[in-house]
């Protein structure tokens, strides 16, 4: 179900106005977006660190930082951005959902998932940040 204006009104006596629902896609991004970002960060970090070091990519140094570290920093920035995007989406949906009619109609389920997702995404942001700390110990070489 996508995020659409739905002219159907439930028999609750509420005024007839379009009901905007949180789409399932947005709910899914809210709930697992941070986790997926974290997972990709970890997998890419491990793959790049393991194979890059074994392949000797750390011999290439730019501005005092080896290529493997640069790649890992880039991956970290992307993962943090993805996590932040999921968090911001969650926050916006939470603001909307708190005021929306469908929060009552659908019994608060989406609002709860958005709240839990928000907490999870903030936590994953923190976890990704902590997980990137080792990179700074290997800036020179592997």
């Amino acid at each position: 179900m996508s995020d659409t204006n739905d002219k159907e009104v439930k028999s609750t006596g509420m005024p007839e106005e379009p009901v905007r629902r949180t789409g399932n896609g947005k709910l899914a991004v809210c709930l697992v977006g941070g986790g997926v970002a974290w997972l990709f960060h970890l997998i890419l970090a491990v793959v790049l660190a393991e194979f890059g070091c074994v392949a000797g990519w750390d011999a290439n140094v730019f501005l005092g930082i080896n290529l493997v570290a640069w790649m890992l920093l880039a991956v970290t920035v992307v993962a943090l951005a993805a996590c932040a995007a999921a968090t911001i989406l969650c926050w916006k949906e939470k603001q909307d959902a708190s005021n929306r009619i469908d929060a009552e109609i659908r019994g608060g389920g989406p609002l709860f998932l958005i709240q839990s997702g928000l907490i999870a995404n903030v936590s994953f942001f923190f976890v990704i940040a902590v997980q990137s700390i080792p990179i700074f110990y290997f800036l020179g070489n592997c």
Partner: protein
Amino acid sequence: MSDFASIDQKSAFEKTWTRPPGVWGWLSVVNNQPLACRFMITAFSFFVAGGVLALLMRLQLTFPESEFLGPQVYNQLFTMHGSTMMYLFAVPFLEGLALYLIPLMIGSRDMAFPRMTAFSYWTFLFGGLVFYGSFLVGAIPDAGWFAYVPLSGPEYSGLGLDFWLLGLMMVEIAGITAGIELVVTILKLRSPGMGLHRLPVFAWTILVTGVMIIFAFTVLLMATALLELDRAVGTRFFDPLFGGNALLWQHLFWFFGHPEVYIAFLPATGIVSMIVVTFARRTLVGYPLVVAAILLTGFISFGLWAHHMYTTGLPVFALSFFAAASLMIGVASGIQIFAWIATLWGTRPVLSSPMLYMIGFVFIFVLGGFTGVMVAVVPFDWQVHDTFFIVAHLHYVLIGGVLFPVFGGLHYWLPKFTGRMLDERLGRWSFWLNFIGFNLTFFPMHIMGLLGMPRRVYTYPAELEIGGYNVVATAGSFILGAGFLCLAVNFFRSLLRGEPAEANPWKADSLEWSVSSPPPIFNYFRFPVVASRNPVWHPVKERSDEQAERAVEAMAGGPVGWRATLACEPVSGRPMSIHVLAGPSSAPFLMALGLLIAFLGVLTEWYGVLPVGLVFAAMALVRWLSPDEEELKMIRESSVPQRAGLPVFVTGTQSVGWWGMVSLIVVSGVALAVLVYAYFYLWLFSPEWPQGGLGPPGMAVALPTHLLLLLAGGAAYGSWVYYQRKEVKPTLGLLVGAALLGALFIGLKLFEQTRFDFLPQDHAYGSIFYVMGWFLIAYVLAAVVMAGAMLIRLRTHEWGRPGVMTLHLQLTTMFWGFVSAAGAVVFTVLYLASRVLG
């Protein structure tokens, strides 16, 4: 309040849910309650066996340089002890507990796929019997519960490892099917009003655990299959001399192995949340935080696996990420612990046995968590790896984190299951014996490990001067055993002389306490309507949802003659359809038996038995899935759907079956991903690829063959499109096309394999090349059979009449979609990757 409107209605409804009589009826049971009890009893029996093995190990280790058992027997003991506890007790018991409680907690009459519950149990039982069958022939597995290669490979181990691998494969299949069931049931079969925001925390943990099982157990299933292929067929996945890689096994095993401990831990935390709330007499503080923590744990647990491999020589840079992740998972556990403390804060909890176990859990698990943070640090782990420090850590987190909540949960829920209260005095005795015995056994092991006592070694030198610690540990282990015995005595005593239990002896808040103790076999005569997270404490005061009330009223005490429950929208819990539940059948038992026969064929090297077993299993599956026309007629003629205002025959996300097929596709996708990972892993660590001096594989046969598969998938999808337009001839024609193209694909693929100038036994490249092809062939074969079955049924189908056919064709099309996509992946990996990346 009487649950029944009249005696006749009661009888007719009960008859719908009872099993057929006799032994065959006992084999045909599909109701969640008896199957859950069987799961728990069987798992506990294995627990007792594993405990006895542990006591024997302790006796061997009591004194230095003891020859009480000898090294070979000791290796067998620690292998079977670990394997029993991890594979045959922890997860199966918790799955059994969930199978009993989840339908009650969410307001459902059974699990989503009752016959799959039965199949899961029988497969688990047969798998466990294969494990322990090794004792009968003196071929006991001895390579540890983790079975590292090359020790577990064909060169260094005997028949015992085949028992281990094949038994484990059956247990994994049981676990995966139970996991799928639990996920689909929780998402789709909740009572009206039970949105995800009102789901009991135990159900949240089971939901996340179910998803974890689908991923983790599938990886292990594939890994064990590859190892068995190395042993039985001579493939080279893990043989470095032929281009294989021993570390590949470790990566695959621990990718399962670490989530496995959280698969056991998370449901235990769910138990704690339920009990703490009851005894604090207060709703859980920080419910959204706890749910977020459960999600965090579920995700992060998949990112820790290499912390079991710190000493394997992986680059330190790579290890550092796992170290960071291993530290971070403590945050998630910490959130839950603080939520429990906050819930208890300021209350005066009743310290009866269940609550005592919860306090014991917090104490022991937190200590285990401290040592977990210590061993997450790479240099520290390098010192204590393979010592008794690790043994201490793992037992603190597993016994503290899993067993104590399980015991507390048993004290809490056994009155519901049996209708009899446990004796409180015996309960306290068992708690204190367990608590003191546990700490006496395992705390000294921290010191023993730091002083250098290695694990998995049958004795130690007297010069280490740790004999005293070992004497204390052994004494503690027998006290712990006494604690378990006390619990067992309490259980049997309660069955014989226990005080009858009320429906809600603890004055708890969740739905299972709203029915009698024990509950009726159908769980709910009338579905509850839920309006809060604590539905028994805060029941619905006024009718608010007319549609839900109408559905509940129509389904009260009905339908009769066919089994059904309400299916809901996954997020809100709003009823959307009536889900038909499969009735009693011996097919699940027979299918499990067929699998057992097939595996025994491999075990005994009577390979002719393998296809016999597989065909037997396939025939049982056909019987399982064949619709009961009489039942369909009853459903069509029933007035219940009309009165409820809900459809029965639905498709897409409304259908429970759709979710089941999605789960099957996810499992299959993970299995394929394991093979893809293995391909690239072997390539990366191989000096040449393809190995054996081969060039890139030829595409003259492969390209058209794989295009055929894509066409077949397209034809299957086309048949679905035309079916929906009710155009008979195109539907049938395209289905025939899909089946024929699929069969042609299989023939050409097999022909191609006869033209290769290498064999799977030649090198790891050959092994992965052939096995990926066989994987695809097996899936295409299944898809062809499904298309064929649909063709047969469509010949007698009444077009335009609502029925189950629409859903089945949709599911067939979905499966074909996966198979086509899998073909594209296999082609890309095997034929293009080495050309492009070479």
